[in-house]
């Protein structure tokens, strides 16, 4: 398993007898830039290297694909992070391509999970992936001018490259962006734009690309029908759209369409200072903000090399696990909603979630947008009292009595319920190999029988000291995805109990001097955590300034959707809703 160590080892040592370099002689070389790791692959050799890594060296899981625009070098870089599902650190591959004519071979045939991510890079950077089956914009609409994440692309309210803007800081002037924009709105138009004759792109090509099967050989002749569900639909968990091709009531093809909540998270993140991004991470997966904070803090701490005090580590884990419980509560409540048990189970789940939100509100100051972690610790210690009780007593009561009771209650009413079983068992089956190939993460992956949990596979924070088991199920259907959430909540409660037991009663919660602006050493880092919805990763590139040069979020909800179409095929249209609910997506994270 020497290959496992390679991602983390400094490049000088790997150069000596690196099995990867010797295996792919000539196709790749170690990345020797300061603060960087991994390998640079020549574009032509990419599919071959990827196939070799997957089949011979066991890197079967492509976690993240993203781009970076190195404007000064005139190059775009596409960065791949691959893992072995048996555990261990990342293998980091990079391909460089000319900014003016960026063409790369697509990896969809090797790792189908690259599908949406390559489309995103095409959308944001304009890199064309040859061989991609459906290379079209994914977050912005067809016809949008430019590729927004390129460094020389400027948004309508552009003022300066980086915050804090000189016009407002340190003098504290207030200025409205509208004042600087000629339309007074957040828009910008190319010269000579002909408004009169503009026709927006239609969805015809999208509809045409769907696989519509005729009713060959069946007695009942049915027409093939294309139905749009969403973006405004009561069961799509936000502004998400599914374009469904139907044969009668049976789904023959399904294409997710997204971007209706694309809030330019990454572009804004690259203008922000490192610390300013922390509250923005809350708004990614807004049902589990503590987990998002943790992932980002880990990524930046890796670059800065700071330590986190003991008590802060425990607080982090405690909060992250409470988040998991509250997230799964919500997910289960609304999965039942999707099945037609309208509102009632959700009300029970929300009631339990409110208990946890009280802890967050008292500690971090906000129910949902906690903004709690800092680079080197957490922002605040636990308050003295909560709802007129001692806070620790309140949380222990939660962890020992009230949450387990709430979980049991859901379990009792739902798990054996006949309708739940009838609607869930055997629906939306995702076999293990497919789950890995499509880069599914979190409960979706584990319900298919792959025991991959980052808290065990590559432990961060203090998870290596805690006793919990990685829950798995074997069928990979909707029912298993429901049951695994119940199991995971139980494990999380157990972790909370241990954290409460072992947490030092007093102590530092922040290891550095609080600073408004932190300077982060040059280099790249990829921090990842096991968020309730799956592997949440942050890819951060720093050039030594106070702002990230590149800030990318590997969003589990987004990548889990890649396999949605596959899972829905052959099921009835009403099942698509349930399958979507069982993936548990949050649009803030899907679209970013």
């Amino acid at each position, binding site marked *: 398993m020497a290959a496992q160590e390679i991602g983390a080892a400094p490049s000088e040592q790997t150069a000596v007898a690196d099995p990867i370099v010797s295996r792919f002689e000539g196709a790749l070389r170690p990345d020797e830039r300061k603060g960087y790791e991994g390998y640079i692959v020549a574009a032509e050799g990419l599919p071959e290297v990827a196939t070799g890594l997957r089949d011979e060296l066991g890197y079967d899981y492509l976690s993240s694909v993203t781009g970076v625009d190195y404007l000064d070098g005139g190059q775009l870089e596409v960065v791949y992070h691959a893992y072995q599902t048996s555990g261990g650190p990342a293998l980091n591959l990079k391909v460089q391509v000319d900014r003016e004519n960026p063409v790369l071979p697509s990896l969809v045939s090797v790792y189908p999970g690259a599908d949406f991510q390559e489309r995103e890079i095409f959308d944001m950077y304009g890199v064309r992936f040859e061989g991609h089956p459906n290379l079209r914009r994914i977050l912005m609409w067809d016809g949008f001018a430019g590729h927004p994440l390129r460094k020389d692309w400027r948004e309508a309210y552009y003022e300066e490259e980086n915050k804090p803007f000189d016009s407002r800081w340190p003098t504290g002037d207030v200025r409205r962006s509208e004042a600087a924009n000629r339309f007074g709105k957040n828009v910008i138009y190319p*010269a000579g734009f002909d408004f009169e004759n503009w026709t927006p792109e239609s969805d015809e090509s999208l509809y045409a690309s769907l696989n519509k099967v005729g009713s060959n050989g069946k007695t009942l002749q049915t027409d093939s029908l294309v139905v749009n569900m969403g973006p405004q639909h009561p069961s799509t968990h936000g502004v998400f759209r599914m374009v469904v091709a139907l044969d009668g009531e049976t789904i023959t093809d399904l294409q997710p369409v997204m971007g209706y909540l694309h809030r330019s998270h990454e572009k804004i993140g690259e203008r922000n200072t490192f610390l300013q991004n922390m509250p923005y991470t809350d708004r990614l997966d807004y049902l589990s903000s503590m987990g998002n904070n943790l992932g980002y803090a880990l990524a930046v701490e890796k670059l800065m090399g700071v330590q986190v005090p003991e008590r802060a580590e425990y607080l982090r884990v405690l909060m992250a696990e409470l988040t998991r419980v509250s997230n799964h509560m919500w997910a289960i409540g609304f999965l039942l909603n999707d099945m037609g048990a309208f509102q009632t189970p959700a009300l029970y789940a929300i009631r339990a979630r409110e208990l946890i939100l009280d802890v967050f509100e008292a500690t971090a100051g906000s129910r949902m947008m906690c903004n709690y972690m800092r680079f080197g610790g957490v922002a605040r210690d636990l308050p003295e009292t909560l709802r007129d009780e001692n806070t620790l007593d309140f949380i222990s009561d939660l962890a020992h009595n009230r949450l387990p009771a709430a979980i049991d209650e859901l379990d009792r009413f739902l798990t054996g319920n006949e309708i739940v079983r009838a609607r869930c068992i055997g629906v939306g089956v995702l076999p293990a190999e497919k789950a890995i190939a499509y880069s599914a993460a979190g409960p979706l992956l584990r319900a298919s029988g792959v025991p991959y949990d980052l808290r065990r596979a590559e432990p961060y924070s203090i998870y290596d000291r805690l006793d919990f088991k990685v829950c798995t199920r074997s069928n990979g259907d909707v029912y298993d995805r429901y049951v695994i959430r119940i199991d995971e909540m139980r494990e999380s409660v157990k972790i909370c109990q241990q954290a409460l037991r072992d947490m030092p009663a007093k102590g530092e919660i922040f290891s550095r001097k609080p600073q408004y602006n932190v300077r982060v050493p040059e280099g790249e880092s990829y921090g990842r955590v096991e968020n309730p919805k799956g592997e949440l990763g942050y890819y951060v590139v720093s050039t030594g300034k106070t702002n990230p040069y590149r800030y990318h979020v590997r969003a589990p909800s987004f990548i889990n959707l890649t396999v949605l179409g596959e899972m829905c095929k052959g099921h009835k249209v009403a099942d698509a809703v349930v399958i979507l609910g069982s993936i548990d997506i949050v649009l803030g994270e899907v679209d970013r």
Partner: protein
Amino acid sequence: MDNELTNPEIPVPDELQSAVTITSLDRIYNWGRRSSIWPMVFGLACCAIEMICTAASRFDIARFGMEVFRATPRQADLMIVSGTVTKKMAPLIVRLFNQMPEPKYVLAMGACASGGGPFKDGYNVVSGIDKFLPVDVYVPGCPPTPQALLHGLIKLQQKIDNQSIKAVRWYGQQTSEAVPLPVLGPDLLDPRQHALLAQQAGQPNETAEPGEA
């Protein structure tokens, strides 16, 4: 009219003495409307989660007669714009608004819907739904707590209380105009800015000097 009704010379039969109440048409009309505002099931972003919590048992929006969330705009009185309005979504929101029958109200929930919020600078973000729709109540916060949303809804009720059946637009002579749908072009096109666009497209933005208003 008031004088006539309150005139003690109008005979009220004895058995009805305790069962008659005198009010104005406006009051009873508004009382009926304000006590059964049906919002649309319409969640955009993080704020929608707090909206759902407001509807759940702890905060219980049903106390205000508003628990009947309708999935279709045709049956809704109130659009709670709960989250970030993106350019890609804006045409759809305007269309949904146009599909709602009068009387209809818009509540901008949260910083994003009110003015773009934390994502205002984003290239795909509209800085506030009021760029397109007439907003009745703004609720600040990111996200507003359920209490804040309830406060906003009470404000809306007060607004309804103060409307008069004689002056409301939906009983007026003219039919109410649909809001022109924005169009997805190279950027979001607002048909109302037609002329300005043709004139000024392509010219750089004035970068106002620091400190300038």
